[in-house]
């Protein structure tokens, strides 16, 4: 029944060149929404269409994009990860703790370098991802519940780490190994903010993994038909665990970027980020049932949400209307998607037939 939607989600699979062109156009729907939004805001707010603003916009998008890219794998396996926002908050707090409080080993306190702090942060967040994955894949807890639990646990842990306080002055003192933390979020490379480069790197990595590695294929297989994937010898639990770990690592990345941008780690950072990330994934055409979608889609979805948020602020739309508009965009985008793919169910068979190779 999903032949069409699934074909659309990977148009490179279609044979006939004319059919392929039409389908690529249909697929470009998410791009189209993005393009229309950009056009609209550029027209309404003159300051919108400047290189400077674009760099800022991309920096903002980077946050939800990185989360959404990590989430994509989880959603592709048929799961969901509600804990990313809390994990981002916890990640920032761990880094903040290490940078300001140090690590005490055998009674003496060490103030480790930024590199070590980042490493330890990733290590802890990896553990949370592994916990999520273990609960879902081995214990059999529903993903929504497992990650809801870790959402609370991680947030509580973040608050306990500093007793609710903010870790300040993460920029550090010059000429010490622990300076340089602000580079992550604040520096530029080739006039592009570092977070945008991080987003690009995460995207490139994820897109490559999804398309070119056995693991990527296994993710799609597990989400598409878990029984069949298991029977084909794919270790579905392992695939799931790795997906949750990747999602948590992306969240850690986000936590570090934000802490670095603010030069402070705040324990409440990241609240409701998960909703943005999930919305981005779904807007990008990934099905919450698993098996269908793409990393690129999530990136575009994140841009749609980011452009909408920044554009509405620039237009001076009230916060309350921003909320309503966001809700409407989410619902409409997905509803149109559904209606369209239903219409196409009638239309694609003709399309497939018209391409010479498709007949068999």
């Amino acid at each position, binding site marked *: 029944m999903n032949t069409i939607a699934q074909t659309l989600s990977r148009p490179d699979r279609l044979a006939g060149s004319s059919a392929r062109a039409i389908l690529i156009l249909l697929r470009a729907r998410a791009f189209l929404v993005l393009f229309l939004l950009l056009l609209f805001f550029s027209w309404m707010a003159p*300051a919108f269409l400047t290189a400077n603003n674009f760099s800022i916009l991309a920096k*903002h998008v980077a946050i939800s994009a990185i989360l959404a890219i990590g989430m994509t794998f989880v959603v592709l396996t048929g799961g969901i990860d509600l804990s990313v926002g809390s994990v981002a908050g916890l990640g920032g707090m761990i880094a903040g703790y290490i940078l300001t409080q140090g690590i005490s080993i055998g009674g003496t306190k060490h103030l480790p370098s930024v590199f070590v702090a980042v490493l330890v942060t990733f290590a802890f967040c990896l553990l949370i991802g592994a916990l999520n994955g273990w609960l879902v894949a081995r214990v059999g807890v529903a993903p929504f519940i497992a990650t809801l639990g870790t959402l609370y646990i991680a947030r509580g842990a973040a608050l306990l780490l500093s007793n*609710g*306080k903010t870790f300040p002055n993460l920029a550090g003192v010059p000429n010490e190994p622990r300076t340089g933390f602000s580079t992550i979020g604040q520096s530029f490379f080739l006039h592009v903010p570092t977070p945008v480069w991080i987003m690009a790197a995460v995207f490139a990595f994820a897109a490559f993994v999804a398309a070119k590695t056995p693991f990527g294929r296994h993710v799609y297989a597990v989400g598409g038909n878990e029984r069949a994937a298991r029977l084909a010898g794919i270790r579905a639990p392992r695939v799931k665990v790795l997906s949750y770990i990747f999602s948590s690592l992306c969240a850690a990345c986000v936590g570090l970027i934000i802490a670095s941008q603010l030069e402070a780690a*705040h324990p409440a950072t990241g609240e409701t980020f998960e909703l943005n990330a999930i919305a981005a994934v779904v807007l990008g055409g990934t099905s919450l049932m698993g098996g269908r979608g793409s990393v690129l889609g999530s990136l575009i979805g994140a841009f749609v949400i980011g452009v909408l948020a920044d554009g509405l602020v*620039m237009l001076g739309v009230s*916060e309350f209307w921003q909320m309503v508009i966001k809700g409407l965009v989410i619902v409409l985008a997905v509803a149109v998607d559904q209606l369209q793919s239903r219409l196409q169910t009638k239309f694609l068979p003709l399309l497939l037939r018209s391409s010479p190779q498709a007949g068999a």
Partner: protein
Amino acid sequence: RSVDERRLIFIIVPSQDNPFFKSEADAASEEAQRLGYATRTEAHDDDAYRQDNLIDAAIASNAAAIVLDNAGADSSVSAVRRATQKGIPVFLIDREIEASGVAKAQIIADNNQGARLVAAEFVRSMPNTGDYAELLGRESDTNAQIRTKGFHAVLDIDAGLKLVSAQSANWSQAEAFQKTETMLQAHPSITGIIAGNDTMALGAAAAVKSAGMKNIRIVGFDGSPDAIAGILAGEMQATSLQPAVFIARLAVNEADRYLKTGSTGAVERQIVLCYLVTKQNAKDYGNFEKLR
């Protein structure tokens, strides 16, 4: 480009569904419009990252100045610095940040002083000995931390008063209502409740009323009209009024002066004292300012 071309003032406050911040934002906006500026009001929900994005939006919108009630003393420094570096002066209202020379002005309601003031009134209204409970704001917010510190600087001196329960109600009326009901059950001996803001104090008052208890002193913080009404009705003892409207107007005027002359004409840190509002003087106060 010359200074005068930019006529937009960005006003960023913690939230727009809290009467205090709402009045503050409205006052700043009205004053700025009176002075001929366009304004835009945004809320950061006490989320330093969202505040960071809003500052970016202000930069991108080419704002003339930013009036900011910030999202955390430590976590707001870099955002304020960035705006300043981009040539947009930032005028902090209500809350301070942990850095000097970054913002053009920090017009601070002295939360510490206000907290001490209302705590002293709380002690005065309580019997010599007694148990009391505390409702804290969202514990990760700087303001919640400053206020509880101020409360305890006074309360802990008094040997007769005993803190039997302290819970966070996250600034929320509904949560304060439930938590107070539960605390009253656990500690029926409670004779006073000190709350980190008026919303929570009103929630506590509703809980006390629904428990049918009398003679429980409740004090809050902010000086919201609802709290003042509560004080007049005898449901609350006192609150500490932060002159938000005054602060907001002052900040906008200093911003205006700075944009025109390059100087605010005042020192960076200006501390504005809070007023104690009790039943005796409650009629003199309204909508976050002294009426008479």
